[in-house]
């Protein structure tokens, strides 16, 4: 099957790549653009480790075709920090030890950032239900939720 040419904006940069028609956006990001920050935990939209923001909407990049990205904007974990300055969420995840192995952390950070941009003052329940699509097996979620709350508070100042 012949490849499809895609031009899109990823983390503010114009990119072009070729992808197979049935290739997921996750595989395009990782194998074509070497952006390996988004992770495949399941490939079926059940774990959230591949979360990206597509035209402002939080989605699982494993359930989007690479071909669909043509002409659209994508934000991945690699775009969360501003150069060397970590985003408050990134810093709070480190301060609170809200990650152990770290495989789910990119997905959580992208999802939490999307939440705080919608709702700068979410309570524990809102955070837990918004992040229910991001599986973590190491932390039991406690420190992740506390880190998100702490970052939200700092960002509100």
């Amino acid at each position, binding site marked *: 099957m012949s490849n499809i040419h895609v031009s899109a904006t990823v983390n503010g940069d114009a990119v072009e790549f070729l992808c197979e028609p*049935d290739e997921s956006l996750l595989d395009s990001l990782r194998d074509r653009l070497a952006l*390996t920050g988004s992770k*495949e935990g399941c490939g079926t939209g059940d774990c959230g480790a591949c979360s990206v923001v597509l035209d402002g909407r939080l989605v699982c990049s494993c359930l989007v075709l690479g071909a669909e990205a043509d002409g659209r904007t994508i934000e991945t974990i690699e775009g969360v920090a501003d150069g060397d300055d970590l985003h408050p969420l990134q810093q709070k995840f480190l301060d609170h030890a809200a*990650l152990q192995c770290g*495989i789910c952390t990119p997905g959580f950070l992208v999802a939490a950032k999307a939440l705080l941009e919608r709702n700068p003052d979410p309570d524990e329940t809102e955070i837990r239900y918004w992040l229910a699509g991001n599986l973590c097996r190491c932390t*039991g*979620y406690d420190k992740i939720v506390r880190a998100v709350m702490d970052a939200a508070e700092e960002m509100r100042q």
Partner: protein
Amino acid sequence: MNKIDDISGTEYKYVGTRPVRPDGVDKVTGKAQFGADLYAPGMLFAKILRSPHAHARILSVNTDKAEALDGVKAVLTYADLELGDGGHDLEDDMNHVLENVMARGKALYDGHAVAAVAANSASIAKRALKLIDVEYEVLPHVTDIEKAIAPDAPIIHEDMYTQDMDPKPEKPSNVARRMEIGHGDIEAGFEKADFIFERRFRTEAAHQGYIEPHACLANYRSDGHAEIWCCTQGHFMVRSACAALLGMDLSKLRVTASEIGGGFGGKTTVFIEPVALALSRKCGRPVKLVMDRDEVFRASGPTPSSVIDVKIGANKEGVITAGFAELWFQGGAFPGSVIDLGAMCSFACYNLENVKAIGWDVVVNRPKSAAYRAPGAPMAAFAVESALDDLADRIGIDPIDFRLKNAAEEGTIASFGPKFRRIGLKETLEAAKASDHYNSQLGPNQGRGVASGFWFNFGGTTSASIKIELDGTAVVTVGTPDIGGSRASMCQMAAETLGIPYEDVRCIVADTSSLPYSATTEGSRTTHSSGMATVYAAQNAIGVMCSRAAMIWGIPEDAVDWKDGHARPSGANAGDFEPMSLAEIAKKAHETGGPIAGHCEFEAGKVGQSFGTHIADAEIDPETGFTKIVRYTVIQDAGRAIHPSYVEGQYQGGAVQGIGWALNEEYIYGEDGRLQNAGFLDYRMPVCSDVPMIETEIVEVPNTGHPFGVRGVGETPIAPPLGAIGNALSHAIGRRMDTIPMSPPRVLEAVNGG
């Protein structure tokens, strides 16, 4: 070996604080490289063909069409894997590992690997799999323990006769081995009991559930040397296993551990690494092999499922007079389930005069089980802690008091044999009893459960080295992959010992060619053993620095000692010179004899067991059987918490894995012997909105065998939850729950008196 003066119990500058981990930035910016994140020039993609049958003879494997497909570079069958000698340092039977990595004449479970392909792209490899013709002769299968040990059960290994049986059996069976532990006379004990509890408990198999599927990149070069880069808990183990399975010299294989996306014991063996390496050997190209999630469920290493009969007797005063357990574990299609550990854990928390545990290792047509965090302990504790809860109610004694009255302590003869040294079980029970949680009110349809748990903890072969840079900073090199933030603990212990700031210490995990042998990250051994090795290596370096200071001062070497990061003249020469800092000594290193480093290679011992007690409040919806965990508290003895945040993280992570296993996680096999829920949709692990904050309390009863008093904490947290939640639900419903997982259909049936 260096002399360790007992410094546990004193206040420290870095040990016990909560610094940010040195490797954190890469992990929060997506730059950290996990198993599937490496690419190599000329790399091929591999896929494995797996059996759709639970039990079938493989009559033929025809790969001609697959080999002819454009873009296919290598096709592998079991003939390409020949067992050399080697792998003696591993606990597993290499023949079983070989046969589990790829079926040899018989497919033994749904998902068992039968062939593999390496091609220019993953999609070509997938298409090639469909062109491989495998001729199966389907055989009757069995996936359930009780059916597998029935007389008419289909036999999985015609040559397997139950070992350690007296008299020796004549017929083959699905029971690989019997074992037994205990002391005293349980019959006499039951005679003295006023109350006896007897019941059968069952637990279904669970999966470790690490979010990162197994992934590796193997590169076999034409000169016979090879490299593997993979996510694993033990890259030295991967090297030994792959060398054995490919008949290679150990020295020709170098394995590098990538960052690892969770393991919990499931990545302490090999599944795909030998396949990728053999494919690479066949075509001389680097080969990347990554499991899909359904492959992880069907063909990696879940826990055994279990059937456990428990009988416990106690007198009116609440003293346990006899404890008996008979445990059947199925370890999948191969002997070697963790039946010994399960049997040894069952009564480990208690001081029993009369105790016996019999264990049976059963085989069924399921994937070969691997360790899952305190393997065997959660199932055994579920049965025993449920029994104790029932007895406490009938005796009319508070469940914690009942456990305190029988709790193991220093000098207790453990049910599995040796005398306990100083342990902290009673301290965790006292803390639970005094906790706000235990004394709070319950709401409607709610129940509270308590349970205790234990894990042996291990030492084992360990190496570490530490080098002092010219700028006075230090780099610790260990051989234990960092799953839960252990690099931070290593840096804390090194900084504390050297007397330099935490920020001046880095920690790296070395590959198998850069550090002497180091055992796997498992058995809660990393902070204990690699920690000890780091302290000894640091002291080794301090010895070198003291001799350099002596050289600079022109005084005898043994007239220098080390305090707060400085060399100081001592003895007759005390006060002769200003103390010299590590940085000052390091800067002159090349003038005083060359680079400064220290190292340590040893068999880590002096292990301290870690005990824990959990409290669980569960609320049920009597109309639907839905269970909500409304409050959960973990209280566990860490000896000394090096980094309290990561110790709490182990407590919280283990508790939530336990909650998932207790309520919803299970392997569901159909009548056809195939796994029905091989995905995160129907293998239901807890999501963020399922659980409350997990409250924790770190008890510290130091392990005097460790320089900083450490007890490994990684595994004990998963032992109590099944029992604690089982007891909570039994109180909420008013009926004893005896099957794990306690899913809504089972809870509703119990509520309706089923």
